[in-house]
């Protein structure tokens, strides 16, 4: 079985490549939309104390919902395919980014913000020039968490017809093709580890630049 597993990628290059690309495409699309939605929302919540408690409460509940449940709940709403998987993964990634953005901006020293306001900076300028740069490490930590979660959960997209590397696992399971099953599992594990390392590196880069400036 080991020899067959080692031979499998060479014999099925296209299948493996297409599944990997689909997995990346799905994850990247979901992460991008999650960032575009959650970052502005997180910042807006710091300006709306009334809504903040309610929205962060929802985000906290959303965070506990199992990834498989979130994915399959899209089936009655959107059917099978790429879109329901993408939407579910986006919803899955939003809480980490939203909560970290909100917490990061809130943790910015009030004295600094007051000083900036005293110098005549508008709220928009304070957000752009003071709060976002200072909150960036915490905000990015949220994006990192979301990225790792999305890449891992994208494996389950195979159950809703969304494609990706999980499909090698389900196909291998369906036909009892263990080499395919194992290659799929190892590829997913490698992709998740690579995502983790990439984002950890980016996070260090951001922290390093802040210390240098």
């Amino acid at each position, binding site marked *: *079985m080991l020899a067959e597993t080692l031979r499998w990628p060479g014999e099925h290059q296209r299948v493996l490549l297409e599944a990997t690309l689909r997995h990346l495409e799905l994850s990247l699309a979901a992460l991008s939309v999650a960032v575009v939605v959650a970052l502005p929302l997180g910042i807006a919540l710091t300006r709306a104390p009334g809504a903040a408690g309610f929205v962060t409460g929802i985000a906290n*509940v959303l965070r*506990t*919902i*199992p*990834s*498989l*449940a*979130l994915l*399959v*709940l899209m*089936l*009655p709403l959107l059917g099978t395919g790429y879109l329901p998987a993408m939407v579910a993964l986006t919803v899955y990634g939003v809480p980490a980014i939203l909560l970290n953005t909100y917490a990061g901006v809130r943790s910015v020293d009030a004295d600094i913000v007051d000083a900036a306001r005293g110098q005549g900076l508008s709220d928009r300028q304070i957000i752009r020039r003071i709060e976002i740069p200072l909150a960036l490490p915490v905000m990015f930590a949220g994006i990192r968490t979301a990225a*790792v979660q999305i*890449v*891992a*959960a994208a*494996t*389950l997209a*195979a*159950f*809703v017809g969304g494609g990706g590397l*999980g499909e090698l*696992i389900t196909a*291998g*399971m369906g036909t009892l093709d*263990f080499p395919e*099953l*194992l290659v*799929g*599992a*190892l590829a*997913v*594990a490698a992709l*998740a*580890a690579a995502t*983790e390392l990439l984002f950890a590196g980016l996070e260090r880069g951001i922290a390093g630049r802040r210390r240098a400036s």
Partner: protein
Amino acid sequence: MSWTFENYDRLLAALGEHIVMVASALALSLAIALPLGIWSARRPRIYAATITLTGILYTVPALALFALLIPVMGLGTGPAVVALVLYSLLILVRNVAAGLRAVPPEVIDAADGMGFAPARRLLRVELPLAMPVIVAGIRIALVMQISVATVAAYISAGGLGDIIFQGITQDFNEKIIAGAVLTSLLAVVADETLRLLERRLRPPAGLTDAG
């Protein structure tokens, strides 16, 4: 909604299987993580090695870990519980060690001064003070295990995921929704319950800076 009401016994059975699977996994992971956390808390090298190793396990996506265990352990609840345990080690060991390290040195000195033997000091002083942080870790591990256990139905481990996968193969939306909503409810209730426990365990502010 008629299927849900007519088959509530099947849903309850699946819920029961889910809870038993997660409870055994949590008990086993605590039996491993508590000693490991206590042992590594004040040994930086061992701690670093433990966190690296359990961290690698933690990044493997659930479905992949189940697939990798098939050649070794086959299908069923056994490999599912093993996977759940492997997943929770990082969170639990980290929080046990963090909780113990946050115990103020003065408190430990005081216990030593009162003649506490190390084992008694650990049980009566250090672990109680570390408990809120340990329970916080248990909360995160438990919610994660409830989520991963849903996928375990794919390797014939039963539980609420079974209802979901049946719904998918039969193209029967109500079953999918019933399974997914029940799993989500279980996760939310477990999270809230342990959050309350965590809050109750926290000593009143000012008594200690642990946690």
